[in-house]
């Protein structure tokens, strides 16, 4: 390498460090401002008053299930128990090969009925519609397997009758007041088209009648690391992006949408594996291009709990899929990159996803490999290289620790001191092993994207720990 190339590398390192530092610092600062606002708002209003309002827009909870027999009944019980006066639960069985429908049939006394679609959205054919004799607000659609969650949600969307619908995962456990909290932005601002909620990890917690009774840290280390990731993603990152009006993701595990807006787009795109983010980007694009004022928001206080993978194989497949989906979506909507036509979403959110989220693992992997090679060849100043590595780790730890502090400031869901101390410890420990694993899985996701892999991989459920 020539000296001039060394200088270019110096500048590249400096630039990347500045980008990462700026991203983390600005993100944490924005999240702090947003969460302080939220605290004030929560103390000045009451959910009970909202619940007693004469009219709340009816919501259909769309619950796609594929081989979720272990958790199906518990999850549906939880959804039926969610406080909201005008809700309908629509379970879409996506051609399960296990006993999901049989279990629901037995638990809720289902009878076969006719339920015609309300919108013309393509999806795999619906075989049978069921209605519960014991819980009139529960409906089940049994359909042919459409190859992914998007097709199942599209079937539900086509059959939904309410102005709002809520997209969930089959094993989502909504907090009792989650819908009332998530619907608030729709009531406050008629331009709201989508609102995302927080997704938390339920592994290790005590669940009773579909309700999280006591939130605990999981016992498995793999699940614990994921708790930290979720805290970082929701308490810090999404809060910050929402605060600047450039939110690009509403999680498919808990998102509330205006039905007419999504029907107008033709539903979810079943060609991508990250259909939730794709939908949000398409909403941004379509509404911006049409000049329609809109808002896509985040309700950090509305929570849905979900089970996370506890085996390396399943987690690896999940991360591979997520990153593959990210690659597909970013490429499909590449027109948005630095395009002022798409406002903050195009100028801030999209570039951050490209350079930090998508290219992050590539840069990190190159860093690890490059460091090893240069060290082996004796071409690098060892103390400086180690210093830069330590700096990168310290910045990652700072971001995680800030997210834990923000979580404690705004929500304090993990009440026990030992859980908070564990989260702080995980912020450091994840840098040894877990972080490198996620880099590897995400790189595999990029490779699968270029190989045009379309599979979802098998997700195994262990069921909730009930008392």
């Amino acid at each position, binding site marked *: 390498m020539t000296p001039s190339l060394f200088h270019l590398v110096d500048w590249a390192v400096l630039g990347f460090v500045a980008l990462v530092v700026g991203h983390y610092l600005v993100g944490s600062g924005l999240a702090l401002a947003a969460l302080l606002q939220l605290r004030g708002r929560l103390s000045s209003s009451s959910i009970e008053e909202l619940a007693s309002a004469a009219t709340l827009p009816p919501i259909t909870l769309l619950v796609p299930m594929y081989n979720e027999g272990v958790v199906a009944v518990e999850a549906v019980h939880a959804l039926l128990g969610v406080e909201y006066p005008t809700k309908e639960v629509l379970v879409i069985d996506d051609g399960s090969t296990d006993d999901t429908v049989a279990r629901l049939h037995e638990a809720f006394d289902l009878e076969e009925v006719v339920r015609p679609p309300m919108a013309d959205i393509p999806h795999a*054919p619906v075989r049978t519609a069921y209605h519960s004799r014991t819980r009139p607000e529960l409906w089940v659609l049994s359909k042919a397997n459409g190859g992914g969650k998007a097709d199942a949600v599209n079937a539900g969307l086509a059959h939904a009758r309410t102005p709002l619908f809520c997209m969930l995962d089959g094993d989502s456990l909504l907090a009792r007041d989650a819908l009332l909290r998530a619907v608030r932005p729709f009531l406050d601002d008629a331009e709201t088209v989508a609102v995302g909620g927080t997704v938390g990890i339920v592994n290790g917690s005590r669940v009773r009648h579909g309700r999280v009774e006591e939130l605990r840290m999981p016992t498995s280390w793999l699940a614990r690391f994921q708790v930290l990731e979720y805290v970082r993603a929701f308490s810090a990152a999404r809060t910050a992006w929402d605060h600047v009006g450039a939110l690009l993701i509403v999680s498919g595990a808990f998102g509330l949408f205006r039905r007419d807006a999504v029907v107008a787009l033709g539903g979810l795109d079943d060609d991508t594996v990250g259909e939730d983010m794709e939908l949000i980007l398409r909403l941004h694009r379509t509404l911006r291009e049409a000049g329609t004022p809109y808002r896509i928001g985040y309700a950090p206080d509305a929570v849905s709990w979900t089970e996370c993978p506890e085996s390396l194989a399943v987690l690896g497949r999940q991360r591979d899929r997520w990153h593959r989906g990210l690659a597909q979506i970013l490429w499909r909507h590449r027109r948005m990159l630095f395009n002022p036509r798409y406002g903050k979403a195009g100028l801030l959110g999209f570039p951050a996803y490209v350079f930090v989220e998508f290219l992050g693992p590539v840069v990190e992997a190159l860093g690890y490999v490059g460091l090893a090679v240069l060290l082996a060849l004796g071409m690098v100043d060892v103390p400086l290289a180690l210093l830069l590595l330590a700096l990168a780790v310290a910045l990652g730890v700072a971001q995680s620790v800030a997210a834990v502090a923000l979580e404690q400031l705004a929500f304090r869901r993990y009440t026990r001191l030992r859980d908070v101390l564990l989260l702080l410890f995980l912020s450091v420990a994840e840098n040894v092993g877990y972080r490198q694993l996620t880099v590897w899985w995400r790189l595999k996701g990029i490779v699968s994207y270029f190989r045009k892999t379309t599979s979802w991989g098998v997700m195994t459920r262990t069921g909730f720990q009930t008392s």
Partner: protein
Amino acid sequence: MPPGVPDVSEHALAELATALAWASLAFVALVALVAVGLNRWAWWAERRRAAREARWTPRLLALLDGELAPEAFASGLRRRQRADMLRFLVTYAIRLRAADRQRLAKAATPLLPYARERLASWSPERRAFAVRALGLLSVRTPLVTLGAALRDPSRRVALTAARALAQSRSPRAPHVMLSALSRFGGAHTANVASLLASFGLRAGAPITAALVHPRTDARARVAAVEALRQLSYVPAAGPARALLDRPGLDLETTAAVLRLLAGVGGAREAAAVRPFVDSPDDVLRIHAVGALGRLQCGPEDAVRLRRALRDPNVWVARQAAETLGQPVPRPAPPRRQPAPGEVPS
């Protein structure tokens, strides 16, 4: 080295990295302490709140039982406890009605000047809380204060004031709310309609007046129509019918008026609805057929509805079938062809 790329010496880079690493470590340590501190502070605050409520709840129950005079309730309260006491009383005030609420309001009177002070706060959340406390805990609804809050720059404060007015029993409250109806143009129509409907039938006449007022904007008008429909306010039928004749009436208001007429109309309203059964707009036809089905006054309406059974729009046909008590036609199946071996629905 390409021209324009300044030199970065390894020494400078090392110094910068060292400084940043130390700064990051200091930041991590500080924020970790803050996280633990917040956890402990929240635990301590929770204990304090429980202790306070354990002290105040028996006094509150004694107040509601008439064993404690309202004037004595807040005596001895320290200045820094006023916000906590207001919050405590508000949670009960939401659940109490009539005489109990009045006793609570009398007990809260010494705290209201403090709430009024907070109306001038820079924070919309504090202003919203002050409005909420004043609305719930005043012996007489503070109409002037709430009316001013309806025009607050923050929509959250305005909605809080509207909710407080909707919960008030003052006969003038609906007028105050309706005078600022256009303020809620950006809010969800169902939310505003719900607020208006919660005034009850006493608000029927002023809501109708606001509906037909030429300066009421389209969204506010839809909210007014929806509120009248929720109240089943029959006297609104005539003015709403007249609205249909107004040139340039927007689609959403027209559809809302058709839904209202379905619930409160009679023979004259059926006559106003009939032309919309043949409207080129699908949405208007759906609502018109639904309304005519409820209002149908003669055999010619049954003919119209039977004709609507063959409407190219399946939802118009469904409305007609439902009103005629016939089997509901099923819409066309989804576009995608069934997979081999699959039985289509």
